[in-house]
């Protein structure tokens, strides 16, 4: 009987631990994200900005007097989707800068929420990956909502028309984040090629899985 009782006690203790562990109480509230997702549509005029580059200088689109347009990429350090596109972004800049379509990369994330996306970390990452383009901080997170970027990476191809920058393409770089060699659709390349040739862009908007932009809490 005594052994039975010991067994029973063990049972009761074991059971309570198990059910306690499974309750896994976590009442932490997740702050509701900004639901205003309007942003730009293709054909809209994109705003210029003045944002800090990793070299400490301020960068605006209007500084690029020779540019015919821009490949604006909202990207960051930490996101696996963004990381897997880094080399392709460098390649885009190398290919299209000479045609007047440089890459302008903007990190939209709040470094307090995502410390890997801090300014120092951006400098390091850009060096490591050999970024050939400005890598700007969206300080105060004012620019990305205007563009309507919802994730990283998120590309906006702009075309200069007079003193305006008009949005011509919104979306993904290609259709295979995992493996560049296996991509069968090259959305950004095709869009910029069409702009250079003065032809209409076949696919003007695409969607792809990416990392949510980390908003200041």
């Amino acid at each position, binding site marked *: 009987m005594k052994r*039975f009782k010991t067994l*029973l006690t063990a049972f009761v203790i074991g059971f309570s631990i198990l059910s306690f562990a*499974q309750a896994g109480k976590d009442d932490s509230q997740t702050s509701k994200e900004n639901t205003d997702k309007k942003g730009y549509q293709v054909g809209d005029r994109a705003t210029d900005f003045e944002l800090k580059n990793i070299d400490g200088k301020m960068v605006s689109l209007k500084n690029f007097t020779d540019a015919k347009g821009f490949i604006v990429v909202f990207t960051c350090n930490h996101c696996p989707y963004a990381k897997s596109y880094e080399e392709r972004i460098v390649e885009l800049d190398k290919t299209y800068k000479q045609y007047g379509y440089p890459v302008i990369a903007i990190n939209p994330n709040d470094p307090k929420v995502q410390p890997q996306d801090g300014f120092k970390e951006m400098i390091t990452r850009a060096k490591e990956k050999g970024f050939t383009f400005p890598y700007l901080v969206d300080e105060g997170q004012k620019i990305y909502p205007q563009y309507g970027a*919802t994730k990283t990476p998120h590309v906006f191809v702009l075309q200069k028309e007079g003193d305006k920058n008009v949005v011509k393409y919104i979306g993904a770089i290609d*259709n295979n984040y995992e493996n560049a060699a296996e991509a069968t659709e090259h959305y950004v390349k095709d869009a910029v090629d069409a702009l250079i040739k003065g032809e209409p862009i076949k696919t003007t908007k695409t*969607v792809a899985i*990416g990392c949510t*932009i980390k908003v200041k809490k």
Partner: protein
Amino acid sequence: MLLLNLRMKNFLGLLVLLFGLSLYKGQVQNNLTLVNYEELEMKIQNNKDELLVVNFWSTTCAPCVKELPDFMIVNEKFKNNPKFKMLLVSLDRAKDKEKVIQFIKKKNLTTEVILLDDIKRMNTWIPRFDKNWEGNIPVTILYKNGEKVHFNDGEMSKEELENTINKNL
């Protein structure tokens, strides 16, 4: 003594039952099925007479990982309702399958988890789930009898999820 014994037996029986239940409750899958978009769509549409909560997530997505414990708590509340089901759709890479299985065990994910292995056609299937979905995760969609009744863009708190389920159940 006899009476005590009988009570003891009943109590023990109850304990065994509860213990068994708690084991069942903690049951997680040991494998992970990879599906393409069409297979997932069919799986969703085949859930007749049910409210199906589908959560799109990835082990690499911090806000997704953060909300999963709340989803498990809500699932515990509703799982005995035969008209309720929760399905987690992992968007991890197919080659990270083992990592996802380990994650399921570690985080004790007691709902069904499948991996949507269709990355080349994101631009096709993302808008089919919802025209407003830009591809950011997490995203949670509720289906009733195979028809979409709610699309939640972004994280969902326990209360929001529970209220949305109650509203549609």
